[in-house]
């Protein structure tokens, strides 16, 4: 039986800038051919992790391997096998789209002819054929992102790094990037994706690592992470805002109240029975419910719970000890 090898292995990686610990013992394993989401707030160390793995930054301690090669001692081998889509467009803004792709193709040592063919293919695939001559500086945000993605796919990389690929894009641009990621993933490319958007990780990633303070604080599938924070919840929208308090009392322990949306939330440890009990209790009290549903916790709730448990945003080791 074939064992799927690990495309990314990170063990105890540290990176310090003076007193600041950007990475504080990061551990990460990404199986080949999967999409792995790295989820965390600003300053959690997501970009630092991507820069270490793409050989742009040398870490201080720990082991980091991509496609079976050490990012420090075998950087050249790693570079042959990766693609990078950073937060900021990594393109020559003064050149045209085709000129950019041909240049990157040559620098990947494809040779002039193959670099030209590849540029043409990619422009067509990303719907940029008509704009091949226009300077990138005059591209729209979405077009620039597509060209940037095209540039990171010149050599069909084994491992693709996407650092907050949809930050700053409009919904249409985001949808385009998502569909590209899905089609790449179905083609077998290993993808490491960082994001602040929980929805994005939920939608795209097979597995998710939640990162805070330079280390992984939780890991698993989206469902596993949701289960980790506790069970399902029941949501009730009460028609008469004046009876919110009364209704909340009926729901028992751990109720959350959102007055503006007339929304009550409560734990639903035994799903359907909690639901029936809630419906009956409301009916007996004569409180009309507009909507009632049992649902899994959202990743937002997971995320808040996890980062809250870990002590919230930290700036220095001292506050960590204090917390």
């Amino acid at each position, binding site marked *: 039986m074939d064992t799927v090898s690990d495309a990314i292995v990170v063990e105890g990686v540290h990176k310090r800038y003076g007193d600041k610990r950007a990475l504080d013992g990061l551990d990460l394993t990404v199986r080949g051919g999967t999409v792995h989401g790295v989820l965390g707030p600003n300053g959690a160390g997501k970009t630092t992790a991507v820069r270490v793995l793409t050989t742009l930054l040398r870490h201080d301690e720990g082991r980091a391997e991509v496609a079976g090669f050490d990012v420090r001692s075998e950087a050249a081998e790693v570079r042959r096998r990766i693609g*990078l889509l950073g937060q900021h467009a*990594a*393109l*020559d803004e003064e*050149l045209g789209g085709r000129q950019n792709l041909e240049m990157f193709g040559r620098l990947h040592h494809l040779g002039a002819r193959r670099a030209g063919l590849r540029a043409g293919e990619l422009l067509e695939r990303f719907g940029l054929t008509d704009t091949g001559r226009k300077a990138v500086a005059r591209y729209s945000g979405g077009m620039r992102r597509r060209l940037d993605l095209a540039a*990171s796919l010149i050599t069909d990389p084994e491992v693709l790094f996407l650092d907050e690929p949809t930050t700053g894009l409009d919904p249409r641009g985001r949808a385009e990037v998502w569909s590209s990621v899905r089609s790449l993933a179905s083609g077998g490319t290993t993808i490491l994706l960082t994001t602040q958007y929980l929805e994005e990780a939920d939608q795209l990633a097979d597995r998710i690592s939640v990162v805070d303070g330079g280390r992984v604080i939780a890991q698993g599938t989206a469902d596993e992470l949701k289960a980790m924070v506790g069970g399902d919840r029941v949501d009730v929208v009460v028609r008469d805002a004046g009876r919110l308090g009364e209704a909340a009392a009926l729901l028992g322990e751990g109720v959350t109240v959102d007055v503006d949306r007339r929304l009550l939330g409560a734990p639903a440890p035994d799903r359907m029975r909690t639901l029936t009990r809630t419906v009956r209790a409301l009916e007996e009290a004569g409180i009309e419910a507009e909507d009632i549903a049992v649902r899994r916790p959202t990743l937002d709730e997971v995320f808040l719970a996890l980062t809250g448990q870990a002590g919230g945003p930290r700036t220095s080791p001292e506050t960590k000890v204090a917390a």
Partner: protein
Amino acid sequence: MSTATAGRVGWALTDSWTMTRRELARWARQPVQVAVGLVFPVMLLLMFNYLVGGGSGVDGDNTEFLVPGMLALTMAFGLEGTMLAVTQDLNKGVIDRFRSMPMVPGAVLAGRNAADMLQSVAALAVMTGVGYALGWRWHNGTAAALAALGLLLLLRFAMLWAGIQLAMVAGRPEMVQAVQILVWPVGFLSNVFASPESMPGWLGAVVEWNPMSATATAVRGLFGNPGGSTCTWAAEHAELLAVLWPVALTAVFLPLAVRRFAHLSR
């Protein structure tokens, strides 16, 4: 082993050429900027020839003295453009793509240098053409004249590497302005416009040993144009110094710049 080394040198050249082409493609999109770069030294030449002319303290035709000096000075001009381009590159996202690709790391800098050398060849062609029109001539034959142009380009090559390294140290485009001020004393504390004999002793000595002066003196000799009549060691061995100075500057700044680029990841 040797084939591996040959392969690496081959890729270094290929990648550098790709980066040179990148620069040429950018210039093709901004022809006006390129033209301004070529016209500026011509303006200075005309200005010094007609407005300031005759103040050099040298016997003989002033244009014959001035043109080779201006050719040397042209080799220092536009250095801030190189430095600015380097810092801008370093601060743009595209540098991350270059650095995460299997290209030879020094190629980004080598391509910059090569492109600016091509610009310098064009600048020399324009300047010698305008000089010729003003009545300047070379008197020692084509070989000596070509050797003179070679010395000028050698000086340019060294100055570009120095500029690239200084830009890497400066890091940000705003810092370049501070550093570029250095270009002026190097350019003007030389014998480009006046013979060191006409200066106070200490200043004359500084001017004598300026790399730019060595090149200007050597080039004047090779073209058969009048130079200062100073009989110091530096003046008598100008051709040797015009080779040694640039080679020494390159030997210092080229490895520093490439090393610094390779260590951007720290």
